[in-house]
């Protein structure tokens, strides 16, 4: 258990060092930079093209389907990870294999449904 915490302590120290470096660089830049703001400097910069139009646009609902597809298959992946770690050593390996393929099969039905409904095409 101690080892376990020590591993995370290492990660935590790395994060702290990273944040420190980031803060130091921004801080030094802040201390050294001359600050003369003009209207042109404060304008929104977008690839050298002047920004125009409203800042708020309503996005199309089709993005939602893609986001949800991502969530569904993200959760599927989360279940496949522990499954993959025990497949070589578990007692009823065949039963566990079938269990996972039933799980994936049901989600393939979902994917087939989405495809059949034409939502994977970019209309």
């Amino acid at each position, binding site marked *: 258990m101690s080892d376990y915490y020590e591993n995370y302590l290492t990660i935590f120290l790395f994060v702290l060092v990273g944040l420190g470096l980031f803060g130091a660089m921004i801080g030094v830049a802040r201390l050294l930079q001359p600050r003369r703001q003009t209207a042109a400097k404060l304008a929104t910069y977008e690839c050298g093209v002047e920004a125009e139009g409203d800042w708020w646009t309503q996005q*199309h*609902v089709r993005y*939602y389907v893609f986001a*949800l597809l991502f969530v569904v298959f993200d959760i599927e992946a989360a279940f496949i990870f522990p499954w993959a770690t025990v497949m070589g050593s578990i007692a009823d390996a065949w039963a566990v294999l079938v269990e996972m393929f039933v799980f994936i099969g049901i989600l393939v039905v979902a994917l087939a449904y989405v495809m059949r409904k034409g939502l994977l095409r970019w209309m």
Partner: protein
Amino acid sequence: MSAPAGQAVPLLLGLAIGPTIAAVVIGIVMVVAGIRLVTTDNVVHAAISLMGVLAGVAATFMLLGAEFLGWTQVLVYIGAIVVLFLFGVMLTRARLGEADLDAPVAQRWAAAGTAVLVFGLLTTVFVKVFGSAEITVVTGQAPREPGALTSPTTAADLAHDLFRDWVLPFEAVSLVLLAALIGAIVLARRDDREHTRPRVARPEIEVIDEEIGRGGET
């Protein structure tokens, strides 16, 4: 969590110092993020605060030795669910910061009541079930008894429980995901059809779009 003999975990008042400090810090961060989540006027700020709360939950899982669960929390909740929330915000017609997010007073009371009830229920359940349970600390590659309270819990431990004792709930998860996907498609499809139809019944389109916007937020 008790450490076995020979394992030097510094104790103060019977508590392991390092993990206790970490738990307190995580708790403070979560409470601050949670308060910010419900008090902010900007939906995107609320989503970012939610990310902080969920990161705190993940850190707590890791602190308790549930490493895989913690990282899954990061992947699924911070990586996917909050993204889904932000997509929902992008789909709504209301401009950011201009929508009135203040809930009516009755709703606030209902929310406060629900929060207290959930807290009471969870506390009771945890104390009743785990009140005097000792977590056995496993070091190295020691084999684990099925269903035993051990720490840290590896992905393999989780898989043994999941694929031996909890097969049916596991398969039910895929059906829930299927239902969620079909639900989202039903909503999205209706919107597409309305957009391709010649725009004569204008008020009807308005109503349907609003419905979908609301559906996206939840």
